[in-house]
């Protein structure tokens, strides 16, 4: 009997079909192909739910679909395959749900606003969703890499959707190039994994995390390079793959593309930030967590990068004027938390945050989209104000998302962010040596970022919705229909309640079992379960983490207090009828923050000030030395030929004379050597 999991490929293929339909026939269809997209993603969503229930019944699916290349003697085979386990089935539900809501919202944001090029837009959305879903169910690293790239391509197409304007094409190019820079390392990492293990499967008998673990136990050998030991080499491979993660998940220093990506249509921003593109990076680390768990150095770096990014981006979010810019920096910051969680061994906590963040960030972006519709595409928060009464649905949904983002109990973000911070503290205090210190530093940065998160989130809420309207459009906002309100309502509820699936502090307090996500991620394929990862993390060959065994209530209260302090400060400063730009008091700090710490400037400087001269020098070397040698050889030959050709006089007597001389010389030579004259 065909199980529901045999229909899993359809989850990926349906959005792909909608891509083809929108591309081929979109212009002849009502709504520019939107209905095909909505139908396809809704179908995928239903199938994902069915898959989710099948997986919760204990089934998993690790199926090889197609081999497109094999190495000599079947040493390496490059496959496409599907891997459905608790992690990927959960991700499937998130991606398809957000995708279907984004499609519906696009009806209000794009169709009702009279945009042109809608078939192209819906084709892009379809392909984007399909590639992300294929990435999620990838059974091996190479396939993951291919769809990772496709996700990047789709983001390029969609960010640059309004290609006739000035900003979007350059933002699209920037997003593509910056993420490509990271993906370059990822590609080398994929090759390194193949060269080391001969297989890049995530699960199954040849799963490379398992092979790596066995290699560290000394059970069998793997190929290492550059004369490194296995541990050191695995660290190098892990860091290479991490390059792609840092680029896609917009971690410092490759985060600069993400704020610019706000040039794209707002529903696309919601899709990019909540469920696809940016989530891909963190998901990849979670997918091959068994490998990362083996290398403490990589974990330390992930934790530090994550903690630093969380704080760094949060500070920039404090001073921004545009609502979408604030959200962009909050995205970078929140993904920083996820990386922090993965780095400190909080696999479940990070996955949890991925889940809750997908919902509340999609909600916030769609809410911002609704505000932008109402404001006739003016994104400046200083022109808003007082929208609360005019758009109550948007306000309450947005408020729900903001409470989740700021981490106020009992909204979703609190539970997940708090669990990440708890894991960081717990493992930071318990682990000996430098790694523990690194975790504590990352924890401190994450904790400070909580305060900033609370502040910028509520600064945004108060500036947008509270006080007096500060412009003509804010006094008389543009209305919108059900297709905007419906996704907001769905996500608003989810942002409020998703956190309830995993309430570790309440479990500590009451003793009632409430950590359902832990149970969920403990099921499925044995080498991909949360407790397996924990065993590896705490084993001698792995990272050697030790939990300190502290309770989760006190750290939770600390981060809640900080979030409330941030929100309270925002309330004091901005919840007034006529708010002023208090951030001006920061003086030159504000300038630095507003210019994103001059990250763009220094990266442009690296490109023009460092890379360009190097390329010029290399070009000179190429033109001068390499080409010079080649040209020199040819001109010497030409010159010599020009001289030697004079022998060819055309006078037949000369040829005869030379022949005779040659014959005589030959005879003399033979005679001398042969001793005729002796």
């Amino acid at each position, binding site marked *: 009997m065909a199980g529901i999991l045999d229909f899993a490929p359809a989850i990926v293929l349906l959005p792909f079909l909608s891509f083809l339909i929108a591309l081929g026939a979109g212009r002849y269809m009502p709504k520019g192909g939107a209905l095909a997209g909505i139908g396809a993603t809704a179908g995928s969503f239903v199938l994902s739910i069915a898959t989710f229930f099948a997986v919760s019944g204990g089934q998993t699916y690790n199926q090889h679909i197609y081999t497109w290349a094999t190495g000599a003697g079947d040493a390496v085979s490059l496959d496409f395959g599907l891997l459905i386990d608790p992690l990927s089935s959960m991700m499937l539900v998130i991606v398809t749900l957000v995708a279907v809501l984004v499609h519906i919202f696009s009806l209000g944001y794009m169709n009702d606003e009279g945009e042109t090029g809608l078939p192209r837009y819906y084709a892009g959305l379809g392909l984007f969703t399909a590639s992300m879903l294929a990435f999620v169910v990838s059974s091996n690293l190479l396939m993951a890499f291919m769809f990772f790239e496709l996700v990047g391509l789709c983001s390029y197409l969609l960010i640059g959707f309004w290609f006739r304007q000035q900003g979007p094409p350059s933002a699209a190019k920037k997003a593509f190039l910056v993420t490509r820079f990271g993906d370059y390392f990822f590609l080398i990492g994929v090759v390194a994994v193949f060269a080391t293990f001969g297989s890049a499967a995530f699960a199954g008998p040849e799963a490379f995390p398992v092979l790596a673990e066995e290699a560290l136990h000394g059970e069998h050998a793997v190929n290492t390079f550059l004369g490194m030991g296995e541990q050191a080499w695995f660290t190098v491979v892990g860091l290479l793959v991490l390059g792609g993660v840092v680029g896609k998940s917009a971690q410092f220093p490759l985060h600069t593309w993400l704020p610019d990506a706000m040039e794209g249509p707002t529903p696309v921003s919601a899709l990019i930030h909540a469920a696809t593109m940016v989530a891909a990076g963190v998901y990849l680390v979670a997918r091959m967590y068994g490998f990362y768990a083996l290398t403490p150095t990589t974990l330390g770096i992930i934790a530090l990068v994550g903690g630093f990014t969380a704080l760094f981006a949060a500070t920039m979010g404090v001073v921004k004027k545009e609502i979408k810019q604030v959200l962009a920096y909050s995205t970078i910051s929140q993904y920083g938390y996820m990386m922090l969680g993965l780095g400190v061994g909080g696999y479940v906590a990070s996955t949890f945050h991925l889940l809750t963040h997908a919902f509340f960030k999609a909600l916030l972006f769609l809410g911002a989209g609704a505000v932008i519709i109402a404001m006739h595409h003016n994104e400046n928060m200083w022109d808003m104000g007082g929208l609360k009464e005019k758009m109550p649905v948007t306000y309450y949904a947005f408020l729900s998302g903001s409470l989740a983002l700021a981490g106020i109990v009992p909204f979703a973000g609190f539970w997940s962010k708090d669990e990440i911070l708890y894991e960081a503290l717990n493992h930071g205090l318990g682990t000996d040596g430098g790694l523990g210190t690194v975790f504590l530093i990352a924890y401190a940065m994450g904790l400070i970022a909580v305060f900033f998160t609370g502040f910028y989130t509520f600064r945004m809420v108060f500036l947008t919705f509270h006080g007096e309207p500060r412009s003509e459009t804010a006094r008389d906002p543009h209305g919108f229909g059900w297709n905007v309100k419906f996704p907001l309502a769905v996500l608003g509820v989810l942002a409020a309640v998703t956190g309830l699936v995993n309430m570790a502090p309440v479990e500590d307090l009451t003793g009632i079992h409430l950590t359902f996500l832990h149970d969920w991620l403990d099921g499925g394929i044995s080498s991909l379960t949360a407790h397996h990862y924990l065993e590896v993390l705490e084993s001698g060959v792995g990272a050697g983490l030790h939990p300190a065994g502290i309770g989760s209530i006190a750290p939770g209260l600390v981060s809640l207090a900080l979030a409330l302090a941030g929100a309270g400060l925002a309330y004091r400063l901005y919840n007034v009828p006529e708010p002023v730009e208090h951030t001006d008091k920061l003086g030159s700090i504000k300038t630095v923050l507003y210019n994103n710490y001059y990250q763009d400037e220094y990266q442009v400087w690296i490109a023009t000030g460092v890379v360009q001269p190097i390329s010029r020098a290399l070009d000179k070397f190429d033109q001068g030395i390499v080409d010079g040698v080649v040209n020199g050889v040819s001109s010497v030959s030409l010159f010599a030929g020009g001289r030697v050709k004079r022998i*060819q*006089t055309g*006078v*037949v*007597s000369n040829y005869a004379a030379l022949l005779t001389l040659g014959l005589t010389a030959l005879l003399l030579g033979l005679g001398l050597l042969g001793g005729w004259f002796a």
Partner: protein
Amino acid sequence: MVPAQYYLVLSAAVFCIGIFGLLTRRNALLFLMSVELMLNAANINLVAFSYYWGNVTGQTFGLFTMALAAAEVAVGIGIILVLYRNFDGVDVTNATTMRW
């Protein structure tokens, strides 16, 4: 019986006369004659060795060479005619267009 060396000396002498003619003359007809001399010098060698070893193969080859020489003369005369037409004479040193 005449020893084989004499034939060889004769052949060498005829060959050298041919070469001498080739190197000193400019008339194409004399060129052709000199070449014929050299060819016949080689023929003498063939016949002499054939005689020396008592093997008729060499003499057969000599006959072939004669036929070949006749054909060669026909071709050579044709070339000389063309030379005369294009360069107004049979002086081989005038025909120097076939170079670099």
